[in-house]
């Protein structure tokens, strides 16, 4: 078990390092990192023509004439110490801004995950147990619609019907508990639908296994068969999918935060993209990749906790 | 000598951090004459199937030698091996899984003929496929089916027909009946036996079942944990086994209570 944890941890660190190289590489092959663009976007204004002196100064300040690997090394060395460099636009440390914005995103994501699991898992189980019933069909059709609905469109549908129509929840911003409702529902819908579908099919798969027949032959109540024998097995694939879905949710938060003017990382990222604030973009993407890697690590570990075939090897 | 195996070894390394070596096949020696059947018997996991794959160079041995009609096969390039592939064939354990799931039976049977250009025209191919089908006791209605539309016994017949198409000199039968019912097993075994005699094919017959081996083999080799513990004539192995493991294996034959033997046999 310890060996497994160690191996997964090492792999996670490797992936994060590689991801940081990739992020840095992609963003620094862009016109956004030329001194002229930085000057135009962050210092003198888009219409101005920068002078040679200004260009020299910016190049020197951000050491832009160094070869890329040197710049990367400098960046990652600082990043390990918690310093992601300074934002071009805001002129403050990137890490500082991320620290300010992160709680809003974390809150939104955590609540959405909780909401989606709370609805999706019981619903998936019920649909599987009551297979081909009216309830099952209804559940599957709604899940299908929820999966196919683009989150930004769903957001507007919700705004039109709840905020404008009934004036129940605030349309934008992060001020109060009600303001959480619409963004949460928007984010949770897609993830919940996917989770529900996986839960259902995994449950159906498990219910057709031989050991379920064994359990029934013991004379267990059907509820006992489901709760003691089927559920745990059916959860295994769901755990993996929830990890993947979390990634989708991180991506989706960019959109949802944009629609609802939610002051989180996603909004910060998209604003920085348009402001050509490369250090900021870099920091946000690295943070997202790290969070995702961490979630996947947790998923793998909990998988191992649930499955003795991974926890213990085979006895030779 | 048709097949000569000397000091054949196959090692596998296991583990990622502290590697250890497992000897799946450990210094195995045997030979098979033309038209002869050597039975290879042992428990599941003793390395029998590895021997089968080593003989046909489907996997490379760690060391040792395999000779086919005096020609050394180990270390030969895949291209050079093609010349021998036609002469050495294999019948697998899982009949349905040894056929291409998306090829009709007719296509599966025609493939070896096309591969080695054994037929000159489509018409000749058709005739030959029918002939093969007939030899293994299947009828034309089976030609247009897919493997999953056949029973295990029927699929195994197709696999045998496909091997026969090449007119091989040597066949490895790797547990060809262990997934089949006892009654179907008798069909397949008598078919194999009949064809082997008709075409004078040398055979390595692999099985965990001593009774089956007894029914088809001329000589028997007993394998235990990668090693051959005893080799001898059928009579010697069954009547006077020397190695303790062979004795143990013979004791696992299910003896029918003698009181129940049919009158006409008693």
């Amino acid at each position, binding site marked *: 078990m310890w060996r497994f944890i160690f191996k997964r941890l090492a792999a996670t660190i490797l*992936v994060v390092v*590689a*991801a940081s190289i*990739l*992020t840095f590489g*992609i*963003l620094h*092959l*862009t016109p956004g990192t030329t001194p002229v663009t930085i000057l135009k976007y962050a210092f003198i204004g888009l219409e101005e023509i920068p002078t040679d002196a200004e260009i020299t100064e910016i190049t020197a300040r951000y050491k832009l004439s160094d070869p890329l690997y040197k710049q990367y090394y400098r960046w990652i060395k600082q990043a390990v110490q918690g310093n992601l460099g300074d934002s071009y636009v805001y002129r403050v440390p990137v890490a500082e801004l991320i620290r300010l914005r992160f709680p809003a995103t974390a809150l939104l994501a955590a609540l959405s995950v909780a909401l989606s699991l709370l609805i999706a898992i019981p619903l998936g189980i019920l649909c599987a147990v009551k297979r081909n019933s009216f309830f099952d069909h209804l559940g599957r059709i709604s899940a*299908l*619609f929820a*999966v*196919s609905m*683009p*989150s*930004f*469109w769903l957001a*507007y*549908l919700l*705004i*039109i019907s709840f905020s*404008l129509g009934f004036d129940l929840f605030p349309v934008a911003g992060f001020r109060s508990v009600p303001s959480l409702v619409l963004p949460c529902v928007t984010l949770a819908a897609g993830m919940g639908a996917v989770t529900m579908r996986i839960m259902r099919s995994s449950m159906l798969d498990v219910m057709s296994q031989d050991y379920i027949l064994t359990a029934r032959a013991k004379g267990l109540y059907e509820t006992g068969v489901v709760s003691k024998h089927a559920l745990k097995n059916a959860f295994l694939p769901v755990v993996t999918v929830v990890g993947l879905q979390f*990634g*989708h949710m*991180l*991506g*989706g938060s*960019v*959109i949802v935060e944009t629609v609802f003017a939610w002051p989180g990382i996603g909004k910060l*990222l*998209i604003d920085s*993209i*348009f402001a050509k604030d490369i250090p900021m*973009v870099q920091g946000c*993407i690295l943070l*997202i*990749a790290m969070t*995702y*890697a961490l979630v996947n690590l947790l998923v793998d570990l909990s998988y191992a906790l649930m499955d003795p075939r991974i926890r213990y090897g085979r006895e030779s | 000598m048709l097949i000569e195996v000397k000091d054949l070894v196959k090692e596998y390394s296991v583990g990622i951090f502290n590697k250890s070596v497992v000897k799946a096949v450990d210094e195995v020696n045997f030979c098979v004459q033309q038209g002869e059947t050597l039975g290879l018997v042992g428990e599941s996991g003793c390395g029998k199937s590895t021997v089968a*794959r080593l003989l*046909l160079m*489907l996997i490379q041995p760690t060391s040792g030698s395999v000779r086919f009609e005096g020609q050394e096969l180990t270390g030969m390039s*895949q291209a050079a091996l093609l010349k021998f*592939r036609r002469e*050495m*064939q*294999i019948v*697998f354990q899982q009949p349905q*899984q*040894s*056929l*291409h799931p*998306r090829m009709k039976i007719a296509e599966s049977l025609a*493939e*070896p003929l096309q*591969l080695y250009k054994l037929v000159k025209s489509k018409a000749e191919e058709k005739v030959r496929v029918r002939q093969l089908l007939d030899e293994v006791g299947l009828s034309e209605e089976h030609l247009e089916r897919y493997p*999953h539309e056949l029973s295990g016994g029927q699929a195994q017949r197709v*696999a045998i027909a*496909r091997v026969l198409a*090449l007119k091989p000199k040597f066949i490895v039968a790797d547990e060809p009946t262990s997934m089949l019912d006892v009654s179907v097993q008798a069909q397949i075994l008598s078919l194999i036996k009949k064809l082997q005699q008709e075409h004078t094919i040398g055979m390595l017959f692999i099985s965990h079942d001593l009774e089956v081996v007894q029914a088809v083999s001329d000589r028997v080799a007993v394998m235990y944990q990668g090693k051959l513990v005893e080799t001898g004539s059928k009579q010697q192995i069954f009547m006077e086994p020397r190695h303790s493991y062979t004795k143990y294996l013979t004791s696992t034959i299910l003896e029918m209570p003698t009181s129940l033997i049919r009158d006409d046999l008693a």
Partner: protein
Amino acid sequence: MDTTIAVDKSYKKGVVRFVKQDKLLVYSAAVVLIIILIALMAPLIMPHDPTAVSLTEKVNPPSFQYPCGTDPLGRCVLSRIIQGTRTSLVAAAIIVAISGTGGVLLGLISGYKGGLVDSLIMRLVDVLLAFPSIILAMALVVSMGPGLGSVIIALTLVHWTGYARLVRAEVLTLKQSEFVEAARAMGNSSVRILFKYILPNVIAPVIVMASLDIAQIVLSMASLSFLGLGAQPPDAEWGAMINQGREFIRTAPHVTLFPGLALMVTILAFSLLGDSLRDYFDPRLREGYIE
């Protein structure tokens, strides 16, 4: 358990039974076909020029003349949706074709060759999968500058990984299977085995994946356009159209509603097609097995 009972099929009634049994497959395929037809015939069926600006008819509600109303620049929303169908499908087709072919080939090589090549390809896949796909696509679009072309390149670079992983896993299983071993023993060359024995058996899951992938790509593309990173004005694209209607949801919800509806129907149709194809290809469900 010997509860598997072979059921004799009557091939004559095959088509009728096919339609009856796989209703979902037939219906979703029909909708997909209609969507593709709309994309192909877009210029012929558009009631108006999708780029024709009319300052006198801004954000008009649906009417006989404009069945879906007009947008903030007075352009016909229906015509723009039809034009958008073409944009989305053409882009998705390009992305799936390139990333699918590339991913399948890399997966085949990776699974069949093994060793260093395999490790290199799979580590690259791991790193690309370290990002939520839309975030990686965003980074790539930022690097190349906003626009439909960038989005197509970015999504292609992101989406091949799925195919590569799928095909590699399938190849690894198939490589061990007895029928491939039999083919090798028969004297088939590596290339022949790869293309005749392995490829046909990975095609089905790849087709399923491609269908689901189109849905995913249409969504990602619309999302990027919605954020302003994809299609640029005056190009008609669903995500961008929804974005343009943002400020008018109170007064003119139709500007956002209709393109969203088109988006959802497209995604739904391709997802359903993928799902029912998966069921169709699954031999356990196709044969007369007793569940």
